[in-house]
């Protein structure tokens, strides 16, 4: 059997668009609802041509009523259909915490398995450019804290499509968080429908010296760091966790058991965040093997600033990753 090499390239935004389009084509019971589905201003290329293909009954641009619209997506999902609820800025989704956490996440459990909620909550992280504290947040840790929610954060175009397919197919609520900074990322994306399983990390690069476990856009920065470190003969093993919850604990443990050193890089805040969780998991499972305390790079406990000079201080870049790795390996 020969492997067909797929050479079709697609950017991250269009990979999401293709997943939505193909899934909605296959299943007339899927709807997309949220602010800006008609507008590239809001959602980039992700919803390109969807209204034309599926009509305004199934691709619904909405009033600024996040709570009701998100709850409506849950209600659609409870009524034998499937819904994808997009929030072009994750910050605004805070208005919709009740339908996501109180209702969707708990529904299947509190009704003893009578009715599950096949809904995708799709908030977009959209930051930088001096947008300030309410246009910049990364809130995945908050959702990952909640039983009953799965949380995925693809970092490359291939995973963006495959995880959207999996999120739509999943009979449970899935929070699919992407980052506008990734929308231009290009990779091989098969034209056919395929899935990337929820709960499986991506091994981006193999290495012997240290394991870097990165989340979402931080995978990109870590990749850049990795190329520069290679010049210094530092071989980094890079894991893109892809799914925040359930975490692929096995892949993390396997890698850290090999390298015996770990750096966790998150695009969210440091305190009580994903980096704390991953660090704990490594300590619980690999403590005796570690040759250095697990280190973390994450956003400082500070709201996002507007000033671009302060933004430079605030966001984690490849330079921070390189510096941290060199410190660990010193």
């Amino acid at each position, binding site marked *: 059997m020969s492997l067909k090499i797929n050479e079709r390239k697609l950017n991250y935004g269009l990979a999401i668009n293709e997943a939505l389009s193909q899934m909605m084509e296959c299943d007339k019971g899927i*709807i997309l609802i949220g602010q800006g589905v008609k507008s590239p201003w809001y959602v980039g290329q992700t919803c390109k041509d969807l209204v034309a293909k599926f009509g305004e*009954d*199934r691709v*619904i641009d*909405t*009033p600024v*009523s996040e*709570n*009701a*619209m*998100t*709850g*409506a*997506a*849950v*209600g*659609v*999902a*409870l*009524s*034998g*259909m499937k*819904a994808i609820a997009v929030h072009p800025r994750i910050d605004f989704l805070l208005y919709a915490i*009740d*339908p996501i956490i*109180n*209702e969707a996440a708990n*529904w*299947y*459990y*509190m*009704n*003893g*398995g*009578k*009715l*599950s909620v096949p809904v995708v909550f799709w908030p977009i992280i959209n930051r930088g450019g001096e947008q300030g504290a309410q246009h910049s947040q990364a809130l995945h840790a908050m959702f990952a804290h909640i*039983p*009953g929610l*799965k949380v995925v954060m693809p970092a490359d175009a291939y995973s963006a499509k495959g995880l959207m397919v999996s999120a739509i197919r999943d*009979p*449970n609520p899935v929070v699919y968080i992407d980052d506008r900074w990734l929308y231009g990322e290009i990779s091989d994306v098969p034209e056919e429908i395929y899935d990337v399983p929820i709960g499986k990390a991506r091994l981006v690069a193999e290495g012997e010296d240290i394991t870097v476990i990165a989340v979402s856009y931080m995978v990109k920065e870590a990749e850049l760091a990795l190329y520069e470190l290679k010049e210094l003969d530092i071989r980094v093993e890079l894991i893109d966790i892809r799914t925040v919850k359930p975490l692929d604990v096995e892949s993390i443990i396997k890698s850290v058991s090999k390298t015996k050193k770990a750096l966790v890089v998150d695009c969210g805040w440091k305190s009580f965040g994903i980096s704390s969780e991953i660090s704990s998991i490594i300590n619980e499972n690999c403590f005796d093997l570690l040759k250095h305390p697990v280190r973390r790079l994450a956003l400082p406990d500070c709201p996002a600033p507007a000033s671009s000079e302060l933004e430079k201080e605030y966001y984690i870049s490849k330079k921070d990753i390189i510096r941290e790795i060199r410190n660990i390996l010193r």
Partner: protein
Amino acid sequence: MAYSVKTLKLLYQMMLRIRICEESFIEPILNREILCPVHLYTGEEAVAVGVCANLEKKDKIFGSHRSHGHYLAKGGDLKELIAEVYCRGNGCSRGRGGSMHVISPETGMLGSAPIVGGTISLALGASLACSIQNDQSVAVSFFGDGASGEGVLWECVNFASLKKLPIIFVCENNFYSTHMPIDEIRANRNIYEAAKAFDIFSKQADGNNVLEVYDITKMAVDICRRGEGPCFIEARTYRMRGHVGPDDNIQGSHTDIRPKKEIEIWAMKDPITNFEEYLIANCIVDSEELTAVKEREKELISALHVEIKSTNKPGGKEELYKYVFKD
């Protein structure tokens, strides 16, 4: 409007079933055989029954913290309801929900929840599904006057009106949201007037008169099935019991909320007693028949309590983790 004898009897029997079922919980609550919070529907039966008598199986409803009546009126299984209030494994939510989370998907009762206003948007979504699937079904959202303080209600009414969705918003105005009298929480106690601002059919009904609720809902359901929804009904009623459990929240008692006189006035408007008088006056039934029906219902429910008490609550680690995710 003319009503068939069958309809009148069904309305009565369902109100009676709800009343007897609700009152049957009092003793086991006092005995601490029932531990979960139970919000009794006693006094409000005409609303659930008058509304649901107009619905078909394909129609969907969502409820609140006080939804035993909605569940039963939509056709939910009596034994599974009682078992759920006892948090038993054979309850409608397999002991995971308790009294506040009753559900019966097979009859179109898609769930209830105590977050005030929390299920209104879910019902909105159900009506959106009805509309997309174009099967002439309707969705009903039951909530209390307290929920009129939640912004999400008005977000939902606006969107439903904008898209002409087949949803009926049923506000059960019992004049109290937990301990707060309505005049201390709303600038205008006529909640249906607020809904009129969204250019929809919005009516106030005597929520203790099952025929009035039935008639107004019939109009509303017709409007929704014609694709000209949504509709809003404010049904004015009164809970004869207190907010939660058998405590009646009478002034002077430790919960100290409602004037005794007010409770007495509403007792005169009891939806079931008044309907009994109507049925007898119109020769639909005689008092002997009513007594027989009551006895039968009491025996049935009493036997169910005995049976359910002998069953187990779900327990153990394996049971704990069931139903977090669907495979």
